């Protein structure tokens, strides 16, 4: 599967991609703007940019429809959301202490003992991340096993309709927005099963394609937040952490902090998606690993400095 990742589209570049790849020539372009939530239908500009042959999958509207017409499922989904929120609270509480330990050791570390202490502190954070992801995915799996979406008539109806639309599509475009909402509806309607190549995605849309969604915001009003795992995306892309708006949202000049970021998610590449970025990758089966990304891609190196991939 061909995946084209773009930077934020405040100054659109998706039109150039649409022209270069002749999107829409052999069929309509399936557009996903569910991350925009209630603004999902405001896609006229996007439709024009991809050549006018856009069909919005309306995943957010469909999700609201499920909420209305399948109250049992909606109630269970809300309980799941509460469970996940609680898991996230405890994860963040533990992560706060674990990462503060990492930074404290990092500041002091020298010599062999210091390096060992740092490695062990990092390992504790990585284990915490892994355990949290297992718990989150386990809770989701249990939920889907208890209430199989394909057995819910309303969801099945939407899935069938979406499968038809995607079956006729020549490409899929996934816009940014709220990455949690976006990933949720992509899973709910099993979009992964019907994705059409090429997939063009940016910002939250790109993040939702990965196997681990990492939230980050170092410039939040309450102060720098710890990067946190939020769950799994569609896993079209593996071994990568995508960082839209990296310069605006991350303290990229803080090399020690960025070194922790990069080492925490290693061997995944921490890949910057800035305005104007355009990264094309093939995703054969399991998706591109670190070695499959084209050269020149900007990543955070394990020393915390920005570097181009061929030099990493």
């Amino acid at each position, binding site marked *: 599967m061909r995946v084209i990742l773009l930077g934020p589209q405040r100054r659109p570049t998706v039109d150039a991609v649409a022209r270069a790849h002749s999107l829409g020539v052999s069929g309509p372009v399936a557009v996903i703007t569910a991350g925009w939530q209630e603004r999902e239908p405001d896609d006229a500009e996007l439709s024009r940019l991809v050549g006018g042959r856009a069909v919005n999958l309306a995943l957010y509207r469909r999700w609201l429809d499920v909420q209305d017409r399948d109250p049992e499922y909606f109630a269970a989904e809300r309980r799941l959301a509460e469970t996940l929120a609680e898991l996230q609270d405890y994860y963040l509480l533990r992560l706060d202490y674990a990462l503060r330990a990492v930074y404290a050791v990092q500041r002091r570390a020298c010599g062999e003992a210091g390096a060992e202490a740092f490695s062990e502190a990092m390992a504790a954070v990585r284990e915490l991340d892994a355990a949290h992801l297992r718990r989150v995915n386990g809770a989701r799996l249990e939920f889907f096993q208890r209430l199989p979406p394909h057995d819910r008539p309303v969801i099945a109806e939407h899935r069938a309709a979406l499968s038809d639309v995607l079956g006729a599509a020549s490409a899929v475009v996934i816009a940014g*927005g709220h990455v949690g909402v976006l990933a949720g509806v992509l899973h709910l309607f099993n979009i992964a099963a019907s994705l059409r190549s090429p997939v063009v995605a940016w910002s939250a849309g790109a993040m939702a394609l990965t196997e681990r969604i990492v939230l980050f915001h170092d410039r939040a009003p309450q102060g720098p937040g710890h990067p946190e795992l939020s769950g799994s995306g569609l896993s079209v892309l593996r071994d990568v952490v995508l960082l839209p708006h990296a310069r605006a949202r991350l303290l990229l000049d803080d090399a020690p902090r960025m070194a922790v970021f990069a080492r925490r998610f290693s061997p995944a590449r921490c890949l910057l998606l800035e305005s104007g970025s355009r990264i094309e990758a093939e995703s054969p089966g399991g998706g591109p690993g670190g070695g499959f990304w084209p050269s020149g891609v900007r990543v955070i190196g394990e020393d915390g400095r920005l570097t181009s991939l061929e030099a990493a």
Partner: protein
Amino acid sequence: MTTVSEPKGARGAAPVSRKLAINRLRDRRPLDPAAVDRFLARHAVPVVEGARCTFLYRGEADEVFLIHRIFGLPDHLPLRRLHGTDLWYAVLELPEGSRVEYQLEVVRGGRRERINDPLNPRLAHSPVGSSSVCYAFGHVVPDWTFPDPEARPGSLADLVVPSRALRRDCPVTLYLPARFRRTARYPLLIVHDGGDYLGYAGAKTVLDNLIHRLDVAELVAAFVYPGDRLAEYANSAAHARFMTAELLPRLEAEVPLAGRPAGRCLMGSSFGAVAALSAAYRYPGAYGSLLLQSGSFVFTDIGRDHGGGPPFEPVVRFINRYRAAPRRVADRMFVSCGVYEPLIVPNRSMVPVFEAAGMTVRYVEARDGHSWENWRDRLRDGLSWIFPGPQKFFYE
């Protein structure tokens, strides 16, 4: 963790080393009324020149004083008459980012009159009246405190909660965020002195803006109004029972709220902060968070002279008892205080006590006083920490 809110821009002139405007005026010849007229027409009052602020009064008087409540400075600062004129002045050094409320006291024929600065149109309002405001160099009023036409407004609804505990009908103003949906579940913020927060701290505008900017989660706020404030807010069991056993269940029955401690916050300033702490103390585990601004946490280490007068007696007893046996009353606590208010010392002193009780505390100071604008301007720090908005989820 302690932070001082840093100024993020500049107000007034940049720091200067040259002669102050008032001194240049003093050297002017002839120094006649027309020269003073021109001077006042050219300068905003107080005249802010770097760290130095020149306060002015024009008029015949025997004496003129600058009255303020900056902790650490004499509260009556005399103004000097500019020789041969009816212009009075005093120069005060104020650190960058400071905001000071003040009045002038004019003495004529043995009569003392306290007035707002007639040369300064900037006023701060509170339940006890208004006062003039001096914004020092570097002070910026946060843009999120002004109405934003882009921000969809939430709604306010008044309700009455009959209280057996307080033996009165308690008015409550409920804030529902824009896009309120009964199918969602919202965190709850209960605000003491609700009318004052709405009236003097622009709480609705602030909530609308902070929610719109994704800085703060969509939330429901209940603004409560005191009856006999000094009695109800000074560690009153009846007040705590009203909040926790009457108001909270009613709200959680009628409004789609998260309904768990992590989704409940009690907020208050001054005596309202004592009331919030007291309610959480009496019902530990009910509230996940407290937002305490300039709390009147007066205590004594020895003796009984706390200087607060009779209304503080029950507060001092409560805080002394708390300090002797600190108790974990919530998970998280945001505490803020102005460095120019006398309560800065008790507030600083309480932070390690709260932390030692096992609570996560974020403490913020500002170069400001015991005022509603100070409390308003700290709301983003506090609310975004207690109920963070969904910014981390948005990647447009």
